[in-house]
């Protein structure tokens, strides 16, 4: 098992390097001036050159990348051009907020997805299956930013039950797990949970439906095993694939949703990316993308390890 984990960790390095290089090149190839946040278009050519030099944008791209990568290795992601604040500080605060949102959304989405998936599979082709399948398809098809707006209109504007935007009465830095703060989390978390709920429902329905038709389930039932024991066998067999799907979904959620976080002004990585993109804040953009990519890679590793723990065949292969 240890060798397996070490192998996967070694394989991570080129992936991370490639991600860093691609995101560096992408943000530099994109049209627009990286100094637009601090240099109005009416600035003189002399001033523009002076600022390019101060920020190091007059250096060759390989030198810029080398310096950035070297500093990143030491945990220094640079300074945001627009705000002057350290990128690492900006990203870590946003990541904390996104993780909190993603964790709640994932809990809702996965719990409902598993429940609906098993229900639909056990009651296949019944009205329960049809209702669940309809909900699942609606979940994966509905644009979540649109759903967010609808939820805001209903629960904030019309009913006045929940706040429309923000991350707590005093901002996210004074977050507490009480109702005064958690009510800010309800609408964005529900909005974000809909897609993973739909995907997990459909996956589990297909998996469990297939497992229930297999001979070992027939044998278990023929042995006279109680249905709860049969369920445990089915669940264990469905777990590796369902875990992989949930891991991927969790990865997407942890990546932050630009649209949902913007609709709810939730100060996570999505909103941070939105701001960095529109301000052409290259250090912030590069730093955020790198951290998110690392998240995804680490999460994939964690899922792979978990699958290997659950299913020895994966370890052996």
């Amino acid at each position: 098992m240890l060798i397996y984990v070490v192998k996967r960790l070694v394989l991570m390095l080129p992936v991370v390097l490639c991600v860093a290089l691609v995101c560096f090149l992408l943000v530099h190839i994109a049209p627009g001036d990286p100094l637009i946040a601090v240099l109005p278009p009416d600035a003189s050519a002399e001033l523009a050159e002076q600022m390019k030099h101060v920020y190091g944008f007059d250096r060759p791209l390989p030198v810029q990348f080398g310096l950035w990568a070297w500093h990143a290795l030491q945990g220094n992601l640079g300074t945001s051009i627009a705000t002057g604040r350290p990128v690492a500080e900006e990203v870590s605060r946003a990541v904390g907020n996104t993780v909190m949102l993603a964790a709640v959304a994932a809990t809702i989405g996965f719990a409902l997805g598993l429940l609906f998936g098993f229900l639909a599979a056990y009651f296949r082709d019944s009205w329960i299956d049809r209702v669940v399948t309809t909900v699942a398809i609606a979940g994966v098809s509905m644009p979540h930013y649109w759903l967010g707006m609808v939820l805001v209109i209903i629960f904030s504007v019309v009913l006045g039950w929940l706040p429309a935007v923000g991350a707590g009465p005093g901002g996210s830095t004074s977050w507490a797990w009480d109702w005064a703060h958690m009510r800010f989390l309800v609408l964005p978390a529900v909005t974000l949970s809909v897609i993973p709920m739909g995907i997990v429902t459909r996956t589990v329905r297909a998996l469990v439906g297939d497992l229930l038709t297999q001979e070992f389930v027939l044998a278990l039932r023929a042995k006279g095993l109680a249905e709860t024991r049969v369920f445990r066998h089915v669940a264990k067999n469905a777990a590796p694939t369902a875990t992989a799907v949930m891991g991927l979904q969790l990865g997407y959620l942890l990546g932050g949703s630009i649209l949902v976080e913007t609709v709810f002004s939730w100060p996570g990585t999505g909103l941070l990316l939105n701001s960095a993109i529109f301000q052409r804040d290259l250090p912030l953009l590069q730093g955020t993308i790198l951290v998110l990519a690392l998240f995804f890679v680490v999460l994939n590793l964690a899922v792979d390890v978990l699958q290997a723990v659950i299913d020895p065949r994966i370890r052996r292969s």
Partner: protein
Amino acid sequence: MTSLHLIRIALAAAISACALPAVAETVVRIGMTAADIPRTLGQPDQGFEGNRFTGNTMYEGLTVWDLSAADKPSEIIPGLATGWAVDAADKTRWTFRLRPGVTFHDGSDFDADAVVWNVEKVLKQDAPQFDASQVGVTASRMPTLRAARAIDNMTVELTTSEPDSFLPINLMNLYMASPAHWRKLYDGVAASVADPKERSKRAWDAFARAASGTGPWKMAGFVPRERLELVRNDAYWDPARRPKVDRLVLLPMPEASARTAALLSGQVDWIEAPAPDSISQIKQRGFVIYANEQPHVWPWQFSRIEGSPWNDLKVRKAANLCVDRDAMRDGLLGGLMVATTATFEKGHPWHGHPTFEIRYDPDSARALMTQAGYSKTRRLKVKVQTSASGSGQMLPVPMNEFVQQSLAECFFDVELDVIEWNTLFTNWRKGAKDDAARGATAINVTYSSMDPFFAMVRFLDSRMAPPVSNNWGFINDPEFDKRVAAARHAFDPAERDRALAALHERSVDEAAFLWIAHDVGPRALSPKIRNFVQPKSWFVDFSTMTIAN
């Protein structure tokens, strides 16, 4: 007075105090359009919204805008300077007399050394407080300022690179931050940080989190990207402008529907730029919409390079006569625009008396196009570069499509080249000759017209052609250059206004732009907010408003 009498008075006061209800803190919560809190260290980013919320609230310049009236254009008035004069013999030297008795929020005194320190924070690269991140938004707005020198404690001399009568107007962009507070933060940086530049950077970062200016509002709380809380500065030097509300809470809300929902659900009391299609709902719920003509122009800027069809004055005039701006205002914009007749409208001191009247007259437009050699069968193809969104662009694509349809009636075939906002902004600087223009003969970038340089000089002066500044179309008209120079060298305010009016007249008579709209800066306020004045400016004064019980 006997001691018994004193005890009676004290008892009476104590009983009265107990009998009075506790006075609740008055708070106004504002949803801004910005995606982040504009920088708080003295020179805000994010354009004039930044100046509005974190510049003019916590800081001031030597000059400030008069924002007290809604019915006349805002003017520059004394701020931290009480008066100024240019040297009669050397017009590059100015003397500013400073306002006595002003203190920064940290309690330190405002004086001539503070002015010199603030000039050097953006102009003197070897000064400890020099901060490159503040240079761009400052130096470009006062391009001729070169140096500052303290003459005595309350007098400072400023030097410009050339005679420039616009200096007092431009100086409202240089906000005064507290040198003493910055020094304290600089000294507080860990001793392990030895590099002076790194220490300076950290001191500015700390300053942004605990700002100190001289303005009517003081920083009370700051959560980056989420909220900024300002409280009333009771020691503000102008009693008339001491805020009547205790606290302002500024919240970034870049999404228009989110701002509207926050207002309608009672989460905020004020939103900037409500979505036009939500105005009627906002009004129905009892909120008040404020709007006023802003010094903002939504134009097409013409290419005047060789081969451009806009080199023909008849074509430029025809385009200006062919757009029904009133229909655009009443239909597309729901009333939230002013149909332009020029950069400065009638009544403005810089309007002058142009002979060409910009109005909707398609017959005259077609006649001009016929004279220029175009007809129903021989149509003029033009291409305009615009953006899908962007600060101040209003509704760029629908508005350009409206213009496209209007001009089609006057033998124009308009092709729209819609690109991303920041890319368009960058292209604006590169000019019509650059490949980035992709063959466009016009560009649609909105601009502020608060001061002469931004409103006219950078577009009309041939020396401002790319890469120097924003004369995108390479206008090269000696008469414009002559009038620009005359305005820059007119140091008497009345004479300067006349010179600027002459420059503006010429720009209208030459149809230098296709003028379409002025924005009206709409905002929606809770009905409990009273005594708010929306001036003809990008800025507002938050000090005057009160909260009704």
